[in-house]
């Protein structure tokens, strides 16, 4: 009897279809995959250790660079966790502005996912459409924070500046124009027979397995589990908004694609409610000693200047205890576990990375299937290597 020999193929860190520097070791028998072993760590930056040596305020720009496709979500999660630790209540306008920006961030991330996933499977046009439309959202980011991607706009106790004067006009223009664009992407892909053949019954995971592998986000909802942190444990005023949570049936890549397209529509719905009902008010909480006072006060009042100076140089002392705040980022559940130890620097900031936990289930998605399905599986999990490796 001939013995079955397998070859080991290395899908290296530099590869056009792995989104970043992911290395996958495949053991193949012909075209069938016998064993899959993802190797990560090629972008390890030591962000958690760097954040331990900084004040709470100065660690905000580090959070931008983890999931670089949804930077405002990371900022939001970190600031909510610190506000929980220090027991700060933010004004209503801040909550609504944060919700609006978080939903635009979800759109941003899903657009890049759609473009690159379709590019991996061979559809060369959708990526041009999605990146062109992403420029509208990035334009709004630039008006708010001055930067196209790493804005650090959401700060502890509020926002870094007031919302720009043309924020309302820009967001309404986007809301008017976008539903047509989503229809455009759907005409290209949803009924396309080649796309359906490449994604139906590929990278399937059942609901029980998904919970066992600790998956969250669209990976879990694609298998039929209706769980979304915005409805289950609402944060930052999400309980006031009216939206639905799309759920898939089979847990394959096609269901996850349809789920994310529907999530884009629901994000537009939430953003419309946020911009229609945006209250007036201050853009930062008034907690002297902890939250930086607004710049107009700093230039005119003495106490504000003293507090500003003290907070920038020394920071505030956190109580001895630990908090965990999780939000629903476009990739899954991102959680910040902050341990304060009585001094002005955190003892430990642990980030619960959704992409790290999601990519660990790649063996369950790919083993026993064809080699070309590995590319589809990696794209459908929607990972960002900056978050996997931190």
């Amino acid at each position, binding site marked *: 009897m001939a013995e079955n020999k397998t070859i080991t193929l290395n899908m290296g860190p530099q590869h056009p279809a792995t989104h970043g520097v992911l290395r996958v070791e495949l053991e193949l028998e012909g075209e069938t995959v016998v064993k899959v072993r993802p190797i*990560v*760590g090629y972008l*390890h930056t*030591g962000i*958690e*250790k*760097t954040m331990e*040596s900084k004040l709470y305020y100065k660690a905000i720009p580090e959070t931008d660079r983890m999931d670089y496709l949804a930077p405002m979500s990371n900022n939001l999660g970190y600031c909510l966790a610190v506000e*929980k*630790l220090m*027991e700060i209540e933010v004004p209503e306008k801040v909550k609504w502005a944060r919700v609006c920006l978080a939903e635009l961030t979800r759109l941003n991330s899903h657009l890049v996912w759609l473009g690159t996933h379709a590019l991996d499977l061979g559809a060369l046009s959708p990526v041009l459409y999605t990146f062109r439309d992403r420029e509208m959202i990035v334009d709004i980011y630039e008006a708010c924070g001055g930067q196209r991607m790493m804005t650090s706009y959401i700060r502890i106790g509020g926002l870094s500046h007031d919302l720009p004067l043309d924020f309302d006009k820009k967001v309404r223009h986007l809301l008017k124009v976008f539903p047509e664009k989503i229809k455009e992407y759907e005409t290209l892909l949803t009924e396309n027979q080649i796309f359906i053949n490449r994604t139906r019954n590929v990278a399937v995971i059942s609901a029980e*397995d998904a*919970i*066992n*592998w*600790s*998956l*969250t986000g669209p990976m879990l909802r694609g298998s039929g*589990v209706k*769980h979304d942190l915005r409805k*289950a*444990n609402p944060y930052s005023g999400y309980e006031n908004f009216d939206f639905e949570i799309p759920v898939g049936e089979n847990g394959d890549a096609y269901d996850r694609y349809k789920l994310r397209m529907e999530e884009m529509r629901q994000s537009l719905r939430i953003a419309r409610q946020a911009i229609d009902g945006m209250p007036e008010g201050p853009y930062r909480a008034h907690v002297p000693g902890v939250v930086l006072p607004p710049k107009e006060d700093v230039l005119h009042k003495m106490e504000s200047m003293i507090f500003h100076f003290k907070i920038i140089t020394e920071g505030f002392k956190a109580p*001895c*205890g*630990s*908090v*965990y705040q*999780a939000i629903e980022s476009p990739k899954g*559940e991102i*959680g910040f*576990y902050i*341990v304060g*130890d009585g001094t002005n620097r955190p*003892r*430990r900031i*642990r980030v*619960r990375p959704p992409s*790290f*936990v999601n990519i*660990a*289930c790649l063996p*369950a998605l790919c083993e026993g299937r064809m080699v070309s399905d590995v590319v589809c599986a990696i794209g459908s999990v929607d990972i960002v290597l900056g978050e996997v*490796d*931190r």
Partner: protein
Amino acid sequence: MDFEQEIREFINSRFGEDVIAEDNFRNQLSFIVKPAAVYEICQDLLENDRLDVKLLADIAMVDWLDHEEEKKGRFELVYNLYSLKHKGRFFLKTRLPADKPEIKSLTPLWNGANWLEREAFDMMGIIFTGHPDLTKILTPDDLEGHPLRRDFPLTWEQPKFSWNKDDPPEVIK
């Protein structure tokens, strides 16, 4: 009964002597238990369908070196457990001593614990007995030591200007 009371009753009735303390900082329920009891508590929780605590969200680790909390044990492991039906979350915390940071691995119960424990081993040096593949995952293969420990230096390198071109890199915390 609401979820918090149910969990309290469950853990205190079955594992009363293993629970060292109970905490409710900022409305987050957490139990500080002995290291040997963590595996049994998780096994019983998985079998209990009414509580439905099936999602292991995270395994976090803290190093309490040079702080007065170090007296209770240098390393702290925090297991973050979530119930999908009741939408409630609670934490199981344990303390491990500095000279022998070992605890039984949770991989037979949850597949998702595999990579989370590998990261805890790589970054802080906590050994999980019974883990199928406890190797480095994030740091390069030639880096010795465990970066997230407090005594590992941050290795800050002085940028090279024209006046200090030939100095070796500085190492500070």
